């Protein structure tokens, strides 16, 4: 049974469509809403929580309809039995950590000793045992975040909603917390919806990812599928680590296609045909930066997809290096563990050969980008 069903949800701000006929179902686990700021991901999350009221559509959690504009149903946020972790944590500054976490339990007239037991258990779980009498302002950012998390799980809701919960932490802590957060959510066994604009975070944390732009869902898949087979040029460019060029399929034999790429001086590339099949026509070609090989010598004769270019610059990122290679009128970024030396920057000397593995390429039919 799906824990969450969203059907035809539309939300307008004046003329702007914040959500445009969004529909999907989610079984269980952790689901991320990924997209650039203003793509509607937070609006979608807030609509699920009942904090925003969509202009059309319906939302169900479990077997219960929570919002149905057409059906005249709108369960208020306080009756939806969910947890919510806000971007700024939203801890009440006038209450201690204990009272913050106990708030929802006290409202529901849970007996005092049970409140105490459950609050302490939740705080223990997030690693904040012994800090229950502190005030939020006496805690660090990371600790505040844990309090917010404890507050959202103490009711043992079926679903917790997290709105960019890590965005206020510094980079190092963020990386630690995302792993810990995932462990924690899995341990509690609650399903979670997670809003983020950081694709790495989404990939680390979630079982499934919804990629959104301009109020629409572009792709709904597992992280791996989204990375290896983006089905929309926007998804490919947002996920990054790839170079995007326009191409034209000129031949398709068996499971393979030949694509001609005008920007690469009309060079052709051989690659696997996309799942939905593509006999011919224009398409976007996504080339994964990390799956390319770069050399100053020619590759062996049986190597396919070898292109010749000139290295224009190089950025060492510690461990990885981005090499910028000009091929035709397009710059391709090659990311490798190895530092490929720059021979010369002026003209001929910078000549390099680039080998693009078949697996490094994925095709997105242009007409498929609905």
């Amino acid at each position, binding site marked *: 049974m799906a824990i969450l069903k969203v059907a035809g949800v539309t939300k307008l701000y004046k003329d702007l469509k914040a959500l445009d006929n969004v529909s999907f179902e989610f079984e269980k686990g952790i689901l991320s809403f990924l997209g650039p700021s203003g793509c509607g991901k937070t609006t979608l999350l807030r609509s699920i929580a009942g904090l925003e*009221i969509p202009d059309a559509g319906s939302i169900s959690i479990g077997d219960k309809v929570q919002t149905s*504009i057409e059906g005249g149903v709108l369960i*208020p946020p306080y009756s939806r039995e969910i947890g919510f972790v*806000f971007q700024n944590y939203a801890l009440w500054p006038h209450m201690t950590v204990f009272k913050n976490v106990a708030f*929802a339990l006290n409202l529901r007239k849970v007996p005092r000793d049970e409140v105490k037991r459950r609050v302490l258990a939740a705080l223990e779980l997030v690693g904040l045992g012994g800090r229950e009498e502190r005030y939020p302002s006496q805690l660090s950012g990371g600790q505040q975040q844990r309090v917010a998390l404890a507050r959202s799980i103490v009711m043992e809701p079926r679903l917790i*909603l997290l709105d960019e919960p890590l965005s206020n932490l510094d980079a190092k802590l963020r990386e630690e917390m995302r792993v810990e957060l995932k462990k924690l959510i899995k341990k509690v066994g609650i399903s979670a919806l997670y809003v983020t604009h950081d694709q790495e975070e989404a990939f680390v944390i979630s079982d499934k990812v919804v990629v959104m732009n301009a109020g629409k869902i572009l792709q709904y898949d597992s992280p791996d599928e989204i990375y290896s087979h983006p089905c929309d040029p926007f998804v490919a460019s947002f996920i990054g680590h790839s170079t995007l060029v326009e191409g034209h399929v000129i031949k398709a034999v068996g499971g393979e296609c030949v694509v001609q790429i005008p920007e690469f001086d009309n060079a052709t590339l051989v690659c696997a045909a996309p799942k939905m099949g593509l006999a011919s026509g224009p398409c976007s070609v996504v080339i994964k930066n990390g799956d390319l090989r770069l050399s100053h010598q020619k590759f062996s004769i049986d190597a396919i997809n070898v292109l010749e270019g000139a290295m224009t610059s190089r950025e060492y990122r510690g461990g990885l290096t981005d090499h910028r290679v000009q091929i035709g009128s397009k710059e391709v970024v090659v990311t490798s563990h190895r530092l490929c030396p720059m021979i010369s920057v002026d003209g001929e000397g910078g000549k390099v050969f680039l080998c693009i593995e078949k697996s490094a390429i994925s095709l997105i039919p242009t007409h498929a980008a609905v």
Partner: protein
Amino acid sequence: MTWKANRLALRQGSLFPLSASSLAAVVIVTPVLVVLWRSLTSGKLGFTVAINVDNYLRVFADKDIWPMLSNSIIYAGGSALLGTGLGGLLAWIVARTNTPGKGLVELMPLYPLLMPPIMKNIAWILLLAPKSGILNGMLEQFLGITYPVFNAFTMAGMIWTFGIACVPLGYLFLLPVFLSFDPSLEESAYIAGSRPVSTMLKITFPLAIPAFISAFVLNFLRALRSFETPVLQGTPGNIKVFVSRVYDSMALEFNTGLATAYSVVLVILSALTLYFYVRATRFSERYATITGKGYRVRVIDIGPWKYVTFAAVCLYFLAGIAVPFVVLIVVSIIPYFDYETFMTFPAHMGLNNYRTVLRHASFLNGLRNSVMLSVVIALITVFAGIVMAFTIHRTRAVGTKIFEFIGTLPLAFPPLVLSVGLVIIFVGTPLYNSLWALGVGLFVADFPYAFRNASGAIVNIHKELDEAAWVHGAKWRHVFFKVTLPILKPAVGGALFYIFIEAIRNVDVAVLLTAPGLEYGPVTLFEYFRVGQWAEASAGGVIYLIILIVAVSVAKFAFKMKFSL
């Protein structure tokens, strides 16, 4: 949102705040509409009235209308200029110069809270009255000048009294500008080769202009609304402004049609001023020099000029704070007020005047009524203000922006005009001559302070705090009482005390609504003063002063409250 989504939203905890706010809005708007309506009708109260513009024709046919308009503007502009200029100068002296003794000025922001406006008028009249005034008496006694140099009952006297009362506001507006001024703005001028004095003139002062304009316009508005100075000092000297004309039409002629027509002219003037104020504030925000960073501003050594600024500080301290205060206290403990008796002080010192006023039933009644009503009104007004601000910023009902306008509306209505409206509403009903009418008047007059205070505070509370309560199971009343209200506590406390103080010393709302048997606070002082019982007026005033000092000290020290105007 679509209509359907809207209707669903309304059911979610908007209903109670919305109805409470609407009720408050009706109470606020009714006297306003009544004044407008009455100004457009003619006939005597209780009789059928005709809609026409007769009242306006009479107003504009009044040959005094132009002098009255120019008087109003000269009076308001003059006192605003004096007050804001002096306040700005003092702010600069305190913030940026090495003037000795500048600590004397730091008492000032509290001073206007302690001293009811009517007391300042009484003090300055005692000092500056042409015949019996203390200063004129001294000039005669010590210098042999028999000609009365000072005269409280002139335009200059009015501007002096109200202008001095405008200084604290100018000071409070400009002090933060000078204190949190980004020093790099001046430093870059020094680097460019500018000397301290020219830097001050070309950089520092121009950057303070927007705040100066804001304070000036606000002081101008306060002067337009002011009641005590025009009636106590203007009317005896036959200098008419709109407020005193409205008062005369009501109190002497009881011509409500005429009073409301004059009121409408005054309201238009006030509304225009208020509009400029909003514009000026917006402008000054764009010009903002205050960034929230804690700068350490540089104190400039102004060399020998510091003796000049020291003299300015001392003069202000004497004229603005010490002398009126001392005069009031002295006059309250001498047997009766005239120059000779005053000069024999402390020979015939005694508490007789206090005994006298405390034996007057009217004084005691007024004291009791004002203390009681002020407490009740402060509580109700602050609560209503918070609910209205909550409705605007925290519920999902649409169209709540209208409350923003209604909540601020009384600022454009001088309190006297509001009470004209209330007289018209209540006359002939059992509520006339009751504390109810007074309470409504004080509620409406003080509402904008409560509302704007709450609005500012609620906007500063992150909305997520409410939403977090909401998604974790809190209904609107839980959100309001468990989250919003506790977080607002410091702001609420400040507003409670402020409105208590405003209400307890109110004259201009109450003056038309009191009657024998229904006295209200300082209005009894006003009556003492009008019949020439100056010593009693001073003694009564000092009693109010003591109450206010106690209230402010309790608020300041027990609750660590900060006041701002």
